[in-house]
């Protein structure tokens, strides 16, 4: 159980550190924002408090120092400077390092920790550098106020109090004013005030300078009982009764409150017997009690208000509770197991559908199979949906990257984002991190110019890297766009010729030229920096995106910048696919890439004299005969089928024996032995229990292009003749 709590602490601390980083970056932009300062302080305080609770004393002690600094900022004793933000970010990194070291058992660089703390202490005004300066709200301060019963009299929990305040009659003559006391109470929280006027007499008998009122108040506040009593601290002669009628801890009250009769008995206005007697009649209880003459309206009014007030407060709390209970924390592994199980279920369901087709005469079996298919389809969609996460958290991480790198390179770069709420499968998001880092580093290092260069080019000093995400069908389009110098077409072309990637006089479109940057080891950078320029990166990006079954497109304009668009599938677990057969083997192609299927007869093939081209309406489409590529024995049927796919704006066909049809493919990874097999990205189990390989058609295309030494997508006119 202790381990569970420690794990929960670590998970929450990581979230808080991510939040802290965002808050610090925002504070740098808005140093006057006291709300952010408060937020940073509270985050530090929480990490410190929970760290100490779970035995992470090093984290608690380190964080205490940072918290102290922000207490000074909060109190206006210390200004927010770039240096403070730098040190705070460094402190945040040190806390993360300590957290990670606690998981891996590694050592923490104590010297680095000290450097950060020393730096922070130097920022503090003289007299504030003492080691043990307690931060405001420190647990040690609050510790002495905790009540034995567990409820903190000093405040924090939202509780509702019933207060009766009876001032001393001559209070007004002494210059005291009960109204100011009432105002103070009302400022403590949500307060319902009822003046009791029963003691006021007619004009003949009234002593007008004396106070004949008393008050019943219902107050919901998190300030605690002490704060209420403090209001009356100088009013010794007043009568004050105070009772907690709702301590805010009840979770099962269902948003309601006591019945009116209970309240009146509790207040001493009625006896239980009187209540029981009245309940026999079928009228509103309060009306009955007043009618019976046993309860004055002056007693009924505050009781009714108490009922309304507490019910309202509880409803509000319940709504807030429902809000916070509307999400629960579940370990990611459990979700992975769930999705795997759903995958198995989808496979079994496919078998069931096959069996049902064999026994078509059993209408009931067919009905059940169809119903199961529908339900499993919904279950699959819901299970996959659970793993969907907004990409915003990943975007936030890059703010820091852009800030630190641009400072290192002496550039002024702002990161802007759009579509942070766009959701992607958790696994996809995790795998996207590294490619995005590579691309953004390249934007900063090679794309965006120095402030001087930008000014000379008539651009604003500061550059922008814009990250955006948007849904597009079953994919998400991620665009990384900078307003830098753009790609140098001639330099890329020259490098490609030098590296024999293209022929000396090859005529290439812009897209094909830009595509060269993804070739292994390709770099046009004149010098290698610590950031990039070694030519390692963009090919890794390409591989990673291919691994996600995604595509990359580059657009660039000289002097105006570059945009790299990644099309990423929403999920990696289950995909809609097209099942095809070659010989006795079956294969799966991602349906998202398939445009159409065309029949191809042996006669049509013979007419092309060995060139793998197919006339589709007005256009010529090249195709790859998979049987030949896979070196499969046997002869193809008389009539084959070409599955035409669109890959990076090109239409390419894949020749197969038969197209079986649409298929829900649960992706299974291949074992380590087969992971490097080109052209196959995974496998799936079919309804009859056999295995079908999932084709990586982009890799097949690349392989074919390398083999034929020219791009299939850029056929010359001669080829088409």
């Amino acid at each position, binding site marked *: 159980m202790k381990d569970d709590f420690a794990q929960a602490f670590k998970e929450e601390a990581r979230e808080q550190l991510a939040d802290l980083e965002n808050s610090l970056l925002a504070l740098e932009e808005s140093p006057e924002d006291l709300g952010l300062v408060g937020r940073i302080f509270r985050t530090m305080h929480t990490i410190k408090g929970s760290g100490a609770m779970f035995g992470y004393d090093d984290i608690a002690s380190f964080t205490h120092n940072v918290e102290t600094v922000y207490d000074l900022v909060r109190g206006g004793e210390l200004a927010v400077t770039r240096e403070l933000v730098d040190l705070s970010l460094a402190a945040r990194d040190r806390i993360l390092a300590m957290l990670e070291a606690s998981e891996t058992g590694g050592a923490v660089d104590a010297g680095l920790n000290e450097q950060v703390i020393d730096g922070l202490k130097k920022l503090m005004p003289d007299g504030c550098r003492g080691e043990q300066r307690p931060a405001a709200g420190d647990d040690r301060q609050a510790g002495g106020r905790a009540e034995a019963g567990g409820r903190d009299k000093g405040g924090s929990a939202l509780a509702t109090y019933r207060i009766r305040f009876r001032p001393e009659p001559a209070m*007004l003559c002494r210059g005291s004013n*009960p109204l100011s006391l*009432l*105002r103070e109470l009302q400022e403590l929280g949500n307060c319902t005030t009822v003046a009791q006027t029963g003691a006021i007499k007619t*004009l003949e008998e009234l002593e*007008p*300078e004396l106070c004949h009122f008393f008050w019943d108040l219902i107050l919901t506040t998190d300030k605690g009982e002490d704060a209420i009593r403090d209001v009356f601290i100088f009013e010794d002669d007043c009568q004050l009764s105070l009772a907690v009628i709702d301590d805010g801890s009840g979770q099962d009250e269902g948003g309601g409150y006591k019945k009116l009769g209970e309240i009146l008995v509790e207040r001493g206005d009625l006896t239980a017997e009187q209540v029981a007697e009245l309940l026999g009649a079928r009228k509103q209880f309060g009306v009955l009690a007043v009618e019976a003459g046993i309860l004055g309206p002056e007693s009924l*009014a505050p009781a009714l208000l108490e009922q309304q007030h507490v019910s309202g407060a509880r409803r509000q709390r319940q709504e807030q509770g429902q809000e916070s209970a509307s999400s629960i924390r579940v370990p990611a592994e459990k979700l992975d197991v769930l999705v795997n199980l759903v995958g198995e279920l989808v496979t079994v369901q496919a078998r069931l559908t096959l069996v049902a087709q064999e026994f078509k005469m059993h209408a009931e079996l067919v009905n059940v199979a169809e119903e199961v298919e529908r339900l499993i389809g919904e279950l699959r969609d819901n299970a996959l949906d659970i793993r969907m996460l907004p990409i915003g958290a990943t975007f936030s991480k890059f703010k820091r990257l852009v800030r630190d790198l641009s400072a290192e390179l002496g550039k002024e770069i702002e990161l802007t984002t759009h579509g942070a709420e766009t959701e992607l499968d958790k696994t996809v998001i995790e795998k996207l991190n590294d490619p995005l880092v590579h691309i953004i580093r390249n934007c900063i290092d090679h794309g965006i110019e120095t402030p001087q260069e930008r000014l000379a080019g008539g651009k604003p000093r500061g550059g922008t890297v814009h990250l955006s995400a948007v849904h597009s069908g079953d994919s998400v389009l991620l665009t990384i766009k900078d307003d830098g110098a753009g790609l140098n077409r001639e330099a890329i072309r020259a490098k490609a010729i030098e590296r024999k990637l293209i022929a000396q006089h090859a005529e290439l479109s812009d897209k094909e030229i830009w595509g060269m940057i993804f070739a292994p080891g390709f770099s046009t950078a004149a010098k290698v920096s610590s950031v990039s320029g070694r030519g390692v990166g963009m090919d890794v990006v390409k591989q990673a995106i291919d691994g996600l079954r995604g595509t990359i497109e580059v657009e660039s304009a000289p002097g105006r910048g570059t945009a790299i668009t990644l099309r990423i599938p929403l999920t990696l677990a289950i995909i809609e696919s097209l099942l095809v057969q070659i010989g006795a083997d079956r294969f799966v192609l991602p349906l998202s890439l398939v445009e159409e299927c065309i029949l191809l007869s042996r006669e049509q093939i013979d007419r092309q004299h060995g060139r793998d081209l197919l006339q589709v309406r007005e256009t010529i489409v090249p195709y790859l005969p998979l049987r030949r590529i896979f070196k499969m024995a046997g002869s193809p049927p008389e009539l084959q089928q070409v599955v035409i796919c669109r890959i990076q704006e090109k239409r390419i066909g894949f020749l197969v024996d038969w197209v079986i049809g649409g298929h829900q493919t649960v992706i299974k990874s291949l074992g380590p032995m087969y992971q490097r097999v080109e052209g196959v990205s995974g496998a799936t189990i079919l309804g009859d229990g056999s295995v079908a390989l999932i084709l990586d058609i982009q890799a097949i295309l690349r392989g074919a292009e390398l083999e034929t030494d020219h791009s299939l997508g850029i056929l010359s006119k001669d080829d088409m003749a």
Partner: protein
Amino acid sequence: MDQDQVLVRINEREASTDIALSGPLTVDRIEEVRVGLLRAFALGKSVRISLAAVTDVDLTGLQLLCSAHRTSIARELDLRVTSDGCPALSSVAGVAGMLRHIGCPQDGCGTCVWKGDSALGREAA
């Protein structure tokens, strides 16, 4: 007129006695107002009190109005109090918890001045 001086102006009409109060309705002058109100009730007609020119109200002012209401019930005379949105009254009545849905124990005829949506002082409360 002295700003601190409460003025009680009584105007006897055929069917009612009108009382216009002006200045502060506070503890310092409250006895003076009480006497004025008693004089008005002594005429035996319906009483109409206008608070439109009142500049300040404290608790004694509020309880004096309750007392006048009780007097009207005891003497079986109609009482009508108008404030024309007097801001001093509205804020004090709200803080003091005067605004209510049920009248006081003496309010058998439902004429409580603090009761209902159009009650005295409810305008800005």
